[in-house]
């Protein structure tokens, strides 16, 4: 089929051109336009980053590119794909069989929810074989390519292929899925939030590998994410979506450094990062529009500080700010001046904020260990069960009004440590005490119990990563919040209780509270659920709240808002937080604003701990430096930066490396690190590091031979 384009493409060599492409859903409330007349070109062999808040239509854009919008959605308009041979095909006008062939062979996709993208009852190998078979590709040759792809992604092909999906870690599954999507050698790879469920270090590592793959196989990559800093270093061009349309498109450098659209500027401001001063980060006011009811004129006008009458009535078209950068805003020329933000480069020293912690610890961990036994199924009856060293010798004191942020990659034991600290996970060694009372002695009524276990339970609360799962779906917000009050304030009357609940809902910005109190959890957004969970925990009047990845599931722009709320409530309620995050930027924001500490965990141990700005400006442990590298800064491609780590996957916690556990991945490792375990060495400012690097010149480390071959850095 030949189609002649009726407009000249905006890029030199387009591989995909969209003409007035829309996606609509008919719903009871009216027609929902979740992709609104998008006209757009994608350059061959570019990496295009598409960013926007959740619900802005990014996924709809992605599925439209393959004509794969889920039922009952309908994609309209035209999407022209140009094959290598220069033939033009309209994606929205193909027969089923043509479409079936084109997908995966020409345009492939890795989409949201990669963690469940494999059939749990089939080995990875079968997935590859089925795909090859379905496209009549010779198996031998195809599997050879699969092997190559898997090796390119730093994994052992035989091991991966012979595994069931659940036997792979999240990061490995994700990479196996990328390999699967490339096995038919497509030209275009569309990735929709492909790394959203992974920890930052894994995300960064995968992005690095993706860059190599793109070069090696001449791919066009469309990378969709809500996480602007993540793609900043990867993308050649960035396109920002708001309310189901693109509002700014340009080279990554231009969009990040000279953003012209007020929304882009607000988005950049709202992202927690390591460079900007804490006071400069601020959430975006208001909320994104409803697809059934898109505002007239410029869709951003209800939230835009620059909005004028013109914006309310007329739709802005794209204005070229430079040859390679355009934005859909009437007043783009004024935006830079009207909405300034601190230039990340200007920022140098952050003064540490003084916290108001007490002298005596609320919770103390002393040499705490949590070891799990893990045998394996009926086939292994006669094997000795293996031990998982989830937490292995941790000392930590948490004071009143304290914030301790634990960071580290997935599987390093953060959650287990957190649960142990609040007494919901029993330690298998060492002690955990609450105000001097051993928690498990209190539980078992061992010896003299000064503080009854019930009081300890109440004093140590938790809010979970997934706010939805922790709230009873069959109870109204009001009932959910009333139950802790009924339990701990038995003398409080019904009216007073209600009054208190309403006041709190109002305080956290859920107004009108009367309305919110009557809702069920499913009628709340993710951020709102998380706030209800936070209030519920606070109503117990706890001394310490474990916030386990409590903001990670929220949109980037909502995280700062949620953390601000946590800080405000800390002042009101005198609570401490043990905040767990895989993202150093979040840890910095919350702990930094409360004068708290950051603790870096690796394989069950705290390898570095100290005051927030001390750790960030003067990191000592090589692993902390790796995490800082992984916490992407808002800068365009810095060229081929080496990964400061060897190997992508964390070693198995059943079999931790000898000596310093980080030695298998540490770029600074020397022979001595493989034999001797470094203790916690304290340097100035209460800064402790478990690494020989901080030791004096006469330490044997400096005499020991490096085990890392210089050329090996960045390889597994």
């Amino acid at each position, binding site marked *: 089929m030949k189609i002649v384009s009726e407009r000249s493409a905006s890029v030199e060599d387009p591989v995909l051109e969209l003409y007035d492409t829309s996606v609509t859903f008919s719903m009871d409330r009216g027609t929902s336009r979740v992709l609104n007349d998008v006209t757009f070109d994608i350059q061959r062999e570019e990496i295009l980053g598409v960013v926007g808040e959740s619900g802005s239509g990014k996924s709809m854009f992605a599925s439209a590119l*393959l004509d*794969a919008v*889920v039922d009952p959605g309908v994609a309209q308009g035209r999407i022209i794909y140009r094959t290598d041979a220069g033939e033009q095909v309209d994606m929205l006008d193909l027969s089923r069989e043509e479409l*079936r*062939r084109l*997908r*995966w*062979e020409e345009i492939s*996709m890795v*989409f949201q*929810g*990669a963690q*469940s*993208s*494999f*059939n*749990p*009852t*089939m080995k990875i190998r*079968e997935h590859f074989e*089925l*795909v090859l078979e*379905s*496209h009549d590709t010779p198996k031998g040759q195809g599997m050879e390519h699969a092997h190559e792809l898997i090796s390119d992604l730093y994994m052992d092909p035989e091991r991966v292929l012979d595994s*069931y999906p*659940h*036997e792979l870690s*999240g990061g490995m599954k994700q990479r196996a*899925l990328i390999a*699967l*999507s490339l096995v038919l050698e497509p030209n275009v790879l569309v990735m929709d939030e492909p790394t959203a*469920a*992974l*920890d930052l270090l894994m995300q960064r590592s995968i992005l690095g590998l993706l860059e190599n793959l793109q070069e090696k196989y001449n791919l066009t990559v469309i990378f969709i994410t809500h996480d602007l800093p993540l793609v900043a270093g990867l993308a050649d061009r960035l396109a920002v979506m708001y309310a189901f349309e693109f509002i700014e498109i340009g080279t990554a450098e231009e969009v990040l450094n000279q953003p012209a659209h007020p929304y882009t500027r607000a988005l950049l401001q709202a992202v927690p990062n390591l460079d900007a001063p804490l006071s400069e980060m601020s959430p975006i006011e208001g909320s994104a529009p409803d697809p059934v009811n898109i505002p007239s004129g410029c869709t951003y006008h209800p939230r835009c500080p620059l909005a004028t009458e013109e914006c309310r009535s007329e739709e802005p078209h794209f204005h070229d700010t430079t040859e390679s950068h355009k934005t859909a805003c009437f007043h783009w020329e004024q935006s830079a001046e009207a909405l300034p933000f601190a230039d990340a480069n200007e920022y140098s020293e952050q003064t540490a904020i003084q916290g108001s912690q007490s002298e005596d610890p609320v919770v103390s961990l002393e040499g705490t260990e949590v070891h*799990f*036994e*893990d*045998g*394996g*199924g*009926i*086939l292994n*009856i*006669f094997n000795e*069960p293996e031990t998982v060293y989830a937490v292995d010798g941790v000392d930590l004191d948490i004071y009143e009004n304290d914030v301790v942020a634990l960071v580290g990659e*997935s*599987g390093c034991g*953060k*959650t287990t440590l957190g649960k142990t600290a609040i007494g919901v996970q029993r330690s298998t060694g060492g002690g955990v005490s609450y105000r001097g009372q051993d928690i498990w002695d209190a539980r078992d009524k061992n010896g003299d119990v000064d503080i009854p276990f019930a009081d300890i339970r109440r004093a140590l609360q938790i809010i979970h*990563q*997934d706010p939805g799962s922790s709230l009873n779906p069959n109870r109204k917000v009001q009932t959910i919040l009333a139950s802790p009050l009924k339990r701990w304030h038995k003398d409080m009357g019904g009216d007073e209780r209600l009054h208190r609940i309403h006041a709190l809902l109002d305080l956290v910005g859920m107004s009108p509270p009367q309305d919110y109190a009557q809702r069920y959890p499913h009628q709340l957004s993710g951020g709102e659920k998380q706030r209800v969970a936070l209030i519920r925990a606070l109503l117990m009047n706890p001394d310490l709240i474990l916030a386990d*990845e409590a903001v*990670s599931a929220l949109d980037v722009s909502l995280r700062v808002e949620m953390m601000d709320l946590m800080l405000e409530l800390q002042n009101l309620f005198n609570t401490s937080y043990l905040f767990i*995050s*895989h993202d150093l930027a979040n840890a910095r924001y919350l702990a930094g604003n409360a004068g708290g500490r950051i603790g870096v965990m690796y394989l069950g141990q705290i390898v570095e701990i100290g005051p927030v700005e001390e750790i960030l400006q003067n990191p000592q442990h090589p692993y902390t430096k790796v995490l800082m590298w992984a916490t992407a800064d808002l800068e365009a491609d810095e060229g081929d930066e080496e990964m400061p780590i060897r190997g992508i996957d964390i070693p198995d916690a059943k079999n931790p490396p000898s000596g310093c556990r980080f030695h298998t991945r540490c770029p600074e490792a020397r022979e001595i690190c493989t034999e001797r375990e470094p203790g916690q060495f304290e340097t100035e400012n209460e800064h402790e590091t478990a690494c020989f690097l901080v030791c004096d010149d006469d330490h044997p480390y400096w005499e020991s031979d490096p085990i890392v071959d210089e050329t090996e850095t960045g390889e597994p």
Partner: protein
Amino acid sequence: MSKNYYLKRIGMVFVTIYLVTTFTFVLIRYMPGGPMDYMVAQLIQQGLPEARARQIASTYLKVNPDQPIHVAYVDYMSGILVGDLGISTWYDRPVLEIIISALPWTVFVMTVSLILSFAFGIALGAWMAYREGSRFDSVATIVTTFLTSVPYYLAAIALLAVFSFRLGWFPTGGRYNPDMAAGMTPEFFRSVLYHGILPIASFTLTAFGGWALGMRGNSIQVLGEDYLRVARLAGIPERDIVIKYVTPNAILPLYTNLMIAIGFIFGGSIILEQIFNYPGLGYYLFKSIETRDYPLMMGGFIVITIAVAISIFIADMTYSLIDPQAEAGDSRETY
């Protein structure tokens, strides 16, 4: 799961069987009336004076009604250990012999109905899921929901009334034509099937709906999974999607139910075989309750208990072999 775990589970099976046996034993002894009373009542009905009836009964029945319960219990339990389940008071034959001759018939009826209802239910359920929301789906949902809510014994009585008594198409009882020599002949098999068809039908008809509805729900869930979307995008043909994706994932959660059903279906045989006058285990158990035949009753209950306990044990143990994910029950952090 460690070696200890399995030993513990096996231990549990034995403890369960032991406890249920003991419980049943005590319960049976405290049932009003006893084998004596039953026989005496029967004899009186035949016109004998009560004293005479009592005399005959006591010489005829080899029971010792005055034996204290704990002594009887110890006697009985030690008998079981050497495979002696006692002598049936009513049939005057060793209980073990009765059970061995009756059990295969029950197993036959139950297995066939279980396989039929499962296979048919799975196929129907998968099909309904594929046509979710269609007319076929709604009609099938109504019909299956109705059939599942009908108790099997009502179905049995209805089938018997219509097909045996009114239409006379099927026999009203028995396991096979008594005029025929039992043997590996096609005629014999045909006769067995002919006699078994109504009992099998009453179970199958009332059970397949449950499987179908379960399968439908599971399949609909699987059809909405991310991996299905990936498979479709990757162009995997629908046939492979049904066979390799939907079916295994939808059946897996039903597997445990299937095993448990095997155990409980024995319980169902008590009433079913009575209705069809079909001399299987259930038939004898019913009879033993009626005649207060303690040893036979005990024997029957023990067999059922063992069947239930072992089925559940097997389900538990083999699940990990069938579901590759079963061992991965650890809760890792998402991040």
